[in-house]
């Protein structure tokens, strides 16, 4: 018994969890957990503040990593074997359809959740000082998510894949000056073929996931270093907002001093850091609002993790990821549609390739990146932010409207066809 106890102690090396010291040590002696603070503000854990969308996005990414690695075992990235392997995954490989479905639905879910997460951050003003840069990291994560979806889309090598990527990469070639070369670089040729499939594969399984992991680490680190989550809006009026101090940056409230720990604190790690180590540090009045991360934060995160995995698994049992016929460069399906989240783009492109496919998306991304720096309004109160709320809402609604039109209202030849009218496609 003693040996077992000793082994366990050598692993966890902390006091029992029944003590405050143990609860703190659980967090900061553990490499995976110590991105959390030992204590968090109870109010910040409320579902209606973050809807846990960032976590859901992250958990979906974990599902994608694991199922993706599993799929790699049976997938060969060259035509036409690639398509054959998809068929094998669907009909021969044990649990193949389930894994493929999970990968597919988690990918769709991630696009949805990353977008909703961005909206949450926007509407709660969580991009404002000191979190401007984390918003920028976030926009890059959004682009990476779309990039992963786009590169993954080609891999099944079916008709859908082939034409979505043909159209998608041709959009890029409208970019001034370098457009043609960029497309050639991406495809490794002049049209979507063997070289393109291999390159997309490399991007999809190595380059983009690595970047995603790196940036996610930065993103989480910054959430923590920016003082943890922003305060929920409903807490704004109740307390006066504290002056913010950035670590290492010139402070407005010079000089930095060692923060005195409150008398009943049982842990004091922060005292080795000079100045207020974190933004919006706990003031004595707020002290009673804080709880230990264990169990309050961890249990909530675990519940969200389980709910996410369960939902994706349940969907994967009943909904099958589509697979069309083998890619056929000679025959464009009619209508040829990109994945739904790019249908807004395709709708724009149907009006003008340069304006809709290059200029408009580039401006949208630049505008998103610039939001925290252009928005000089420091108030987080919804009532004080009317103009920007309108602008952002128009941006969101316009994007959704374009997607809806592209998805439901476009028939053969990209003609406007309401969804309730049935058209026989491919009639010549």
């Amino acid at each position, binding site marked *: 018994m003693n040996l077992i106890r000793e082994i366990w102690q050598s692993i966890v090396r902390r006091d029992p969890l029944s003590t405050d010291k143990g609860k703190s040590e659980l967090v900061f002696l553990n490499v995976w957990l110590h991105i959390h603070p030992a204590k968090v503000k109870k109010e910040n854990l409320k579902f209606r503040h973050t809807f846990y969308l960032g976590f859901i996005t992250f958990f979906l990414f974990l599902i994608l990593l694991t199922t993706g690695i599993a799929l790699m075992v049976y997938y060969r990235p060259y035509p036409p074997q690639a398509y054959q392997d998809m068929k094998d995954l669907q009909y021969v490989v044990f649990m193949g359809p389930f894994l493929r479905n999970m990968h597919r639905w988690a990918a769709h879910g991630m696009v949805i959740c990353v977008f909703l997460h961005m909206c949450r951050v926007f509407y709660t003003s969580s991009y404002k000082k000191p979190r401007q840069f984390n918003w920028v990291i976030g926009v890059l994560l959004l682009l990476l998510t779309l990039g992963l979806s786009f590169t993954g889309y080609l891999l099944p090598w079916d008709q859908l894949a082939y*034409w979505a990527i*043909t*159209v998608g990469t*041709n*959009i890029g070639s409208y970019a001034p000056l370098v457009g043609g*070369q960029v497309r*050639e*670089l991406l495809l*490794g*040729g*002049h*049209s979507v*073929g*063997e*070289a393109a499939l291999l390159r997309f594969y490399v991007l999809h399984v190595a380059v983009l996931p690595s970047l995603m992991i790196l940036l996610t680490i930065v993103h989480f680190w910054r959430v923590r270093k920016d003082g943890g989550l922003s305060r929920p809006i409903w807490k704004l009026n109740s307390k006066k907002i504290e002056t913010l101090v950035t670590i290492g940056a010139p402070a407005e409230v010079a000089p930095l001093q060692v923060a005195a720990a409150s008398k009943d604190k049982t842990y004091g790690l922060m005292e080795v850091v000079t100045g207020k180590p974190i933004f919006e540090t706990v003031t004595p009045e707020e002290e009673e609002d804080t709880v230990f991360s264990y169990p309050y934060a961890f249990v909530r995160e675990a519940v969200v993790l389980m709910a996410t995995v369960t939902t994706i698994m349940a969907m994967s049992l009943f909904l099958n990821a589509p697979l069309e016929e083998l890619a056929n*460069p*000679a*025959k*464009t*399906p*009619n*209508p*040829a549609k990109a994945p739904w989240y790019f249908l807004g783009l*395709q709708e724009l*492109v*149907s*009006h*003008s*390739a*340069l304006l809709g*496919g290059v200029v408009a998306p580039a401006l949208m991304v630049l505008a998103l990146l610039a939001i925290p720096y252009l928005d000089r309004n420091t108030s987080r109160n919804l009532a004080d932010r009317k103009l920007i709320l309108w602008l952002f809402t128009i941006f969101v609604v316009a994007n959704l409207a374009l997607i809806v039109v592209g998805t439901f209202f476009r028939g*053969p*030849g*990209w*003609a406007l066809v309401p969804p309730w009218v049935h058209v026989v496609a491919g009639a*010549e």
Partner: protein
Amino acid sequence: MNRREFFKFSWGAVGIAALCSAVGISLAAVVRFLMPSVFYEPPQTFKIGEPGDFPFGPPTFLVDEKIFVFRDRDKGFAAASAVCTHLGCTVAHFSSDQKFHCPCHGSVFAADGSVQHGPAPRALDWFEVTQARDGQLRVDKDKVVPPTYRLMV
């Protein structure tokens, strides 16, 4: 600036210059590396068969080459690109209206390839058709010709 400062500054400048050129050269090397030196793609010039293989009337669609071959009793042979100039989908030739229709974003090209409708920015390409020594027809995709071009055999 005294001697000491001057050397400090110079070495700093040399260091930064070295770093910038190293990064620049590496980037250029990476881009060049990604650019294939050889394209294992179908050649741009290819033979398509004997003149007699092609019927009069509706054009013949060559799948791998993505071209339409027209044969007219009075005017002769012509080859039109089947690749939409908008975003590269394969257009279809409708015999009902003698036009090319693109399924992707609805571009319509007239019988001579000019844009009639939709987002396509320019007309479909017409390629040079010649007769090789062995009598076969040869198409050269690198030689774009006006839509009036015809080869009489």
